[in-house]
């Protein structure tokens, strides 16, 4: 594995499988009375969030704490318009405090890339979502969830539906799922597919109904209502009718097909309440898996070559 996790595209198949296998071992920890391992004792993990994201932050925080790392949460909310301290100075400060890993969420695409490569710090950098670029740990937890339900992903069909244009989740998933052998179809109105998407080596479709019966996984993306003000679609109602996953559409899925959503959901917009709460929905499980996958990522970036979790004797690290 590389020293940083900036893009899902940086992971080889072997890297990705190692993370998933490690996550599987670590997930068993969730069923133990004491959910803590000493693997990263004495290491410092900084959660550096330039954009609000409570769920991603607490997921990383839980992951680091279960590995006994010291966790510092640094919220530096700001926009390009109300710039406070520069990314450089923040990075130098964290370096001076001795951060071993920096988990960064940023409104600017490429900010984690800059942190890792500008020479400001020696920490490992984990991209926790940058602008409209990538969110690699989300893709890993999604792949992990699929893997637990469907086994090997080779040849599995994954439909990713919604605002692909603005979605870092879609980008990271498209890259990682290709690496793991799955076939990805991006489904969106033409306005919400990026220019040049034909070069991504994925299928695209404007027709959700045509894609659903063949899918093994349906991943719904959040669509912001405000997008209609920029003419990406005419109204929320029209969007829901054409691209929302409701009970009628759910009935066209294969029996084994699972429904995913990275959250936060807008019920009634991209997904109806009965679908979100149905037996096909693995949305809550995604959250649980998120902690295990992030533990695996932190462990593998910072940690050792030793197994993360011991065998029957229990934790041995």
């Amino acid at each position, binding site marked *: 594995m590389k020293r940083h996790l900036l893009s899902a595209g940086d992971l080889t198949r072997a890297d990705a499988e190692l993370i998933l296998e490690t996550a599987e071992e670590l997930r068993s920890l969730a069923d133990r009375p004491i959910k803590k391992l000493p693997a990263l004792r004495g290491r410092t993990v900084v959660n550096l969030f330039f954009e609000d994201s409570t769920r991603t932050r607490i997921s990383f925080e839980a992951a680091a704490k279960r590995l006994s790392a010291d966790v510092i949460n640094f919220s530096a909310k700001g926009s*390009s318009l109300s*710039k406070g301290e*520069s*990314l*450089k100075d923040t990075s130098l400060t964290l370096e001076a405090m001795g951060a071993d890993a920096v988990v960064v969420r*940023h*409104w*600017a*695409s*490429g*900010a984690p*890339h*800059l942190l890792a*490569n*500008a020479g400001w710090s020696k920490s490992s950098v984990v991209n926790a979502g*940058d*602008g*409209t*670029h*990538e969110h690699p740990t989300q893709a890993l937890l999604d792949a992990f969830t699929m893997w637990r339900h469907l086994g090997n992903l080779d040849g599995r069909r994954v439909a990713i539906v919604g605002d692909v*244009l603005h979605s*870092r989740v879609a*980008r990271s998933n498209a890259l990682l799922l290709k690496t793991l052998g799955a076939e990805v179809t991006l489904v969106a109105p033409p306005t919400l597919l*990026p*220019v*040049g*998407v*034909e*070069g*991504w080596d994925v299928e695209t479709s404007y027709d959700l109904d045509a894609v659903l019966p063949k899918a093994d996984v349906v991943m719904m993306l959040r669509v912001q209502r405000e997008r209609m003000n920029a003419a990406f679609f005419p109204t929320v109602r029209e969007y829901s009718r054409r691209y929302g996953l409701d009970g009628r559409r759910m009935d066209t899925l294969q029996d084994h097909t699972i429904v995913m959503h990275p959250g936060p959901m807008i019920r009634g917009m991209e997904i109806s309440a009965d679908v979100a709460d149905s037996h096909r929905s693995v949305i809550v499980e995604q959250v649980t898996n998120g902690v295990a996958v992030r533990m695996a990522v932190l462990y593998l970036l910072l940690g050792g070559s030793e197994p993360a979790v011991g065998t029957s004797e229990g934790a041995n690290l």
Partner: protein
Amino acid sequence: MTTAYLVKGVRVLGGEPTDLLLEDGVIAAIGAGLSADGAEVVDADGLIALPGLVDLHTHLREPGREDAETVDTGTQAAALGGFTAVHAMANTDPVADTAGVVEQVWRLGREAGHCDVFPVGAVTVGLQGERLAELGAMADSAARVRVFSDDGKCVSDAVLMRRALEYVKAFDGVVAQHAQEPRLTEDAQMNEGELSGRLGLRGWPAVAEEAVIARDCLLAAHVDSRLHVCHVSTAGSVEIVRWAKSKGWNVTAEACPHHLLLTDELAATYDPIYKVNPPLRSAADVEALRAGLADGTIDVVATDHAPHPHEDKDCEWQAAAFGMLGLETALSIVQQTMVDTGLIDWQGVAERMSYTPARIGRLEGHGRPIEVGEPANVVLYDPAHTAVVDGTNLASLSRNTPYVGRELPGRVVATFLRGTPTVLDGKLA
């Protein structure tokens, strides 16, 4: 009394070696084996002589952003790049939209003395795109403004653009348009294409440039005025300008050195040193620009020298300023992309970097051929030299050159402004 200079063995526009005598501000004699008592002799063996370069598009930042550049430092950079005249863009603070500001910039240029400074006047008050600035007052001022531009912003309102084109006819002015449809480029960060989608950087479609150029060519034809298109960056724009010229319309266009060399692939580094407006485009666009510059569709090379302080480039791509330095590397890049590739010769360079820009700007005493009796604005250039761009030894106050670490050909050995060296031995005189 000024010193006379006898330049020995120089190849004028790459021709046969000869001697030049520069005396009393003019080229006093040309011919092999010249001698002149008391003249300073410059050994120019292996060097070529070009007419002093003229830049139609320079940002000197003064007044307002003296932390990025001043007229003094910017014109030092210009002289080192072989320029004897630059057009200082109007997007200063305050904006150069009155006779007072353009005269201030003009006067600062004269005081600095490294290179003549011709201020560009804003088309609209405060570059706001709402009402015309006092174009006539700027034209009649001591600065004698002939080029008007809201560069950095597009005059996007069609009526305002039409009126500006009409109005400047009264004093033989030209409107230099920064062609960028604002709605199509809101928060745009880089060329729109496959890469912008992958990098998650908001795309800047070619059509946002091309649509405005097409409209403005039609407007210029309709009111029979003069349009100059700034920093053409796409193959489609080249096609539109070619079409407008084929109609006989009075349209000229410029290309920037960075658009002749660099491509949008560099954005994948997320290093804002490559962030520029208009953005770096595809390799196919670069090829089209070179071809357009070679066949005369694009008339001139202009630097769009855009200094920014380090902190405005040492940050997230999205937060960074647009622009790159250009004056000190322009001639080298033109040599690499246009001359060494066989697309144009040194006569062609003189046309595109001196004669034609001076004509577009209606400058007197610049862009003149190297002939007896002409103003002694001359560059001595060593095309055989190569060097790796260092980036720390620039005259510009700013450091935002995208060429650090690249090997570029050529070196400006001397620049003469009306017979007086502003640069000698590659250093400021």
